[in-house]
């Protein structure tokens, strides 16, 4: 059976991981390559590295990091942040990334999805969607890390992204992210059940049960989290043992 995937996400600024880390005794806790390798050893199924640097210099540093990750780590990894055009994708794939994640740029220029899929295959193109549940009950998509609302809504945008060639949807609920009260399982289920491509749930994990709920109730294909892993609140081997005992298929 295809296993449900557990995906730690690392925010990288100027070549260093941003969020604090205290889950193991690391010589280089801030080094994303070392951290990624440690997660891989612990049983992470994939990794996501997000570049949160704005500067040109920072981009170069990030690309160097991608090369080091590709050489060192033996599980698939996705990179995102600051990808605006096909040439950005080309640089990151040549550096060794398996997939790229595009967010605001895809909403601003949906043709970017078509171009990536046509040039490199659907499996390379992860479309990340930041959405927020508004008072009127609509899930509205946001740009620029959740600062600018758009006229797009989650379900119609995800379907369009799929039809343009997205290989996966990474859905972050801004209403749940960082709150540690669980993933938005109703919206997740509606999303996964209307798409024929895999959905990665992101934002909201605070306990092992939350992961189970995302898989069992939300029908998610994968679950992404950051701080619960970085701060050692949840250890991947224990999480997988728990999920297995609950009947969720994991590696």
């Amino acid at each position, binding site marked *: 059976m*295809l296993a449900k995937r557990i995906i730690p996400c690392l925010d990288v600024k100027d070549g260093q991981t941003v969020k604090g880390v205290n889950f193991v005794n690391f010589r280089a806790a801030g080094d994303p390559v070392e951290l990624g390798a440690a997660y891989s050893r612990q049983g992470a199924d994939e990794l996501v590295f997000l570049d949160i640097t704005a500067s040109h210099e920072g981009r170069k540093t990030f690309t160097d990091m991608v090369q080091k990750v*590709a050489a060192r780590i033996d599980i698939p990894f996705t990179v995102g942040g600051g990808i605006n055009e096909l040439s950005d994708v080309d640089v990151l794939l040549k550096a*060794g990334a398996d997939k790229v994640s595009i967010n605001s740029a895809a909403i601003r220029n949906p043709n970017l999805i078509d171009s990536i899929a046509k040039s490199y295959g659907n499996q390379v193109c992860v479309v990340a969607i930041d959405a927020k549940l508004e008072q009127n009950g609509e899930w509205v998509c946001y740009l620029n890390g959740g600062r600018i609302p758009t006229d797009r809504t989650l379900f119609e945008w995800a379907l369009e992204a799929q039809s343009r060639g997205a290989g996966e949807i990474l859905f972050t609920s801004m209403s749940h992210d960082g709150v540690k009260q669980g993933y938005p399982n109703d919206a997740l289920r509606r999303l996964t059940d209307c798409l*024929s491509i895999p959905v990665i749930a992101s934002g909201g994990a605070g306990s092992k049960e939350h992961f189970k709920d995302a898989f069992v109730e939300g029908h998610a294909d994968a679950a992404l989290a950051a701080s619960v892993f970085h701060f050692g609140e949840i250890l991947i081997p224990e999480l997988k043992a728990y999920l297995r005992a609950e009947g969720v298929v994991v590696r």
Partner: protein
Amino acid sequence: MSIAVIKYNAGNIHSVVHGLRRIGVEPIVTDDFRVLRAADKVIFPGVGEASSTMAYLRAHQLDQLIRSLTQPVLGICIGLQLMCRHSEEGDVDCLGIFDADVKRFVSERIQDKVPHMGWNTLQQTQTDLLKDMEAAYVYYVHSYYASLSSQTIAVTDYLNPFSAALHRDNFYATQFHPEKSGMAGAQVLKNFLLL
């Protein structure tokens, strides 16, 4: 030991180079016929579309070269598919090394996602390439698969059982990516080097 990786127009060839380096081997990436023929082992990797990669192989006579190799050869992902008889992707005749045809996954229910992406298990494993790999999880990302045949040496079940790996004479191939399959994948690469 000399390991050659076939250079052609498929993507992601370098991921297997990294995988080999991690187990202590430095491969040569080349399309030089003499180097490929002389290598102790040849790897035919890549991610790509069947008809365009097959057209490239024919245009460069790499199709004939690959068929004529006598040392152990390992195809990976699109490499496996191109070593089959025919692929539905672009309706193209392939190298015909394996008696299997490549078909697209048909999803009859919305929850059956295509591509098949992620970690799945190997079953009915045979040959030294897959020694101790029974029930191991390996990483897949593909929308087309090779049908089962008498040359199937491992089965994975996704929507239907398909050839996770194939073997005939000196030719081996895996649909999964050993270079992205953690420790299990590294073991498959090590096993190949011992063949």
